[in-house]
């Protein structure tokens, strides 16, 4: 569903991403771990087509991002660290607007149902999002992913700054989406969430994917220790 082949990006002399090989299948949640500046956001930006790779290829459900970024983006949903919304629109209006842009025109009741599925109450959906907490914004992001029916979900630090309850709620939704066959790539610092949610993890250090572990390899182990060992090596 989501694939990187020798994906490389340099910023002047610095290699931000070095020949990344990665494949995330339908129903998988791949947590991309790494310190600041490791290349996590660069990876997400390359999959989104917001950056052009120096070499290699990124594919979304078989479509090369470099060759046809618009078509590739049509197949994915993206939830950044802070879902950006129009403050003068209500939650429901933002969802309606963005889902129309994603090519999915839905009726009002359907939109409310999607927001409720994402955990946002109807009365909150009618309020302007200028008053929303970060957790509520993330729920709109999830609802948008549901509305567009994307088969690939890219997440960039989605739980950063969320309180534990909101974070738990968010991961519940992620698992649900994965169960529905969505391939999820999540760049995160949150080792706890990665251990709880991910089916696979990858550790990125200085632009290189230094390790990949399946769920069986890190389940029940001290992920923090494993992560720090990989950083040190």
């Amino acid at each position, binding site marked *: 569903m989501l694939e990187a082949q020798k994906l490389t990006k340099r910023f002047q002399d610095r290699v931000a991403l070095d020949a990344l090989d990665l494949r995330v299948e339908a129903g998988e949640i791949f947590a991309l771990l790494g310190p600041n500046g490791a290349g996590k956001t660069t990876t997400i930006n390359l999959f989104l087509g917001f950056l052009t790779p120096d070499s290699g290829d990124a594919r979304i459900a078989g479509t090369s991002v470099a060759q046809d970024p618009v*078509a590739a983006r049509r197949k994915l949903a993206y939830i950044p660290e802070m879902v*950006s919304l*129009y403050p*003068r629109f209500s939650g429901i209006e933002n969802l309606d607007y*963005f889902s129309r*842009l994603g090519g999915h025109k839905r009726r009002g009741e359907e939109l409310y149902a999607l927001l409720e599925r994402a955990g946002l109450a109807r009365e909150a959906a009618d309020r302007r999002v200028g008053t929303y907490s970060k957790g509520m914004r993330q729920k709109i992001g999830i609802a948008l992913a549901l509305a*567009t029916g994307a088969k690939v979900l890219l997440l960039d630090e989605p739980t950063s700054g969320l309180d534990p309850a909101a974070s738990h709620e968010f991961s519940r939704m992620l698992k649900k989406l994965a169960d529905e066959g969505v391939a999820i790539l999540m760049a995160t610092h949150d080792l706890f969430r990665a251990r709880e949610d991910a089916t696979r993890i990858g550790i990125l250090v200085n632009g290189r994917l230094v390790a990949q572990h399946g769920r069986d390899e890190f389940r029940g182990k001290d992920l923090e220790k494993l992560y720090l060992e990989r950083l040190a090596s």
Partner: protein
Amino acid sequence: MIATIAKGELVGAWRDGRFRLGAVLVLVLLVVAGLLARQQVARETAERDAATALERKNWVEQGNKNSHSAGHYGVNVFKPSSPLAVFDRGIEPFVGTTVFLEAHRQNQTAFLPAQDATAMRRFGELSAALALQVLVPLLVVLLAFGSLAGERESGTLRQTLSLGVAPRSIVLGKALGIAAAIALLLTPAAAVLAILLSRSAEPAAEGTWTRAGWLAAVYAAYIAVIVAGSVAVSASTRTARSALTILLAMWALNCIVAPRLASDVVHGQLPMPKLAVFEVEMQKDVMEGLDGHDARSKQIEDFTKRTLAEHGKTSVDQLPFNFQGFVMLESERMAGVVFDHHFGKLWDRIQEQDRAVAWAGFAAPMLALRSASMAFAGTDFAHHRRFARAAEEHRREFVRLLNEDLMNNARPGDHGYAAGRALWEALPEFRHEVASAAEAWRDARPSLIVLAAWLVASLAFLGWSATRLRAVIL
């Protein structure tokens, strides 16, 4: 897709209190400017009608006198206001409204409305046209600067692009949304101006509504240029603050610096003769012709000999017409050639200046718009020249009829001849119609070419900016 983005932009603009406040201010200014202009035009029209009636009364009641002396008594004729002057007063406040028609002289228009104004006029005259030319672009800038640069900063552009929306659709949708917001603001103002126009004291001349349509088209083109350019700048700059700085600088150059600079440069390159020099040179050339009041001049002596030879007579008293009247007729004809030459040169120079300013619109679109606006409103120099020309033609016809009366009805050598009311009443009243819409279109052609070029260039810039639209600028 484009419609969704445009609608989103429109709704967002409408919910922005700053836009609503700005829109209300511009709307109020437009309507107030229209009402004030209508009041002024109505007052001028009433004054002109009263003065015209009084002039006619004085003329027909001047009593019996020599018909050539009646030519010196003269009449004043008054310039009619263009119905669309309620929208754009153009040069009207700065050129005269009255021409005194008399024998031997082609007078310039006198009584400038600006002379009657207070010192406040130096701060500029408020007109609906000025509000559209200067304030609406400022409103567009304030609406557009953050349309893409701001969204890039807030992350909504990233969100939109991640949904697979083509950059071209985003850019076009934003531009259409802003254009729709401006259209929404201008629709009530346009309706008010249309009502003012339809209820104008001045009967709408033929083609007035066609001219109004052209005015709407040129202003729409101008606003489209500003919208497209502003959105393109917003798409191409890293931050909303940079976009705002660039756009405000462009606005100031276009709306404040360029009009003054263009006027100074054009006057420097195409200078006007000093009024005193113009008068002296014209008078000198007139004096080289026939002076009907100086019987001893060399020219009169030659003309007398030639006339007597042509008719085979030895004395002017033997001629079958009043020779004095014939001299006056001929001297008017010769002076007319001189006036045509000098006034023609002067007016050509003013129109050259106007054309140069219109072409300077390639540097700042407001210059082209201003020229086109005045042309379609019927308040530019070309229209003023038509009035001045019509007044002069009327003067020549009126003096010719008086001189012919003297020539044909006064006995040779009869210095006591007097014509009366019947002749004064027989002389036609001055009538002048505002030029047709087609003529206005011809006058506005350079400005229309410039505006069309700006429209094409700004749309190309918008298209180019779409190809460079990035969620992330490194």
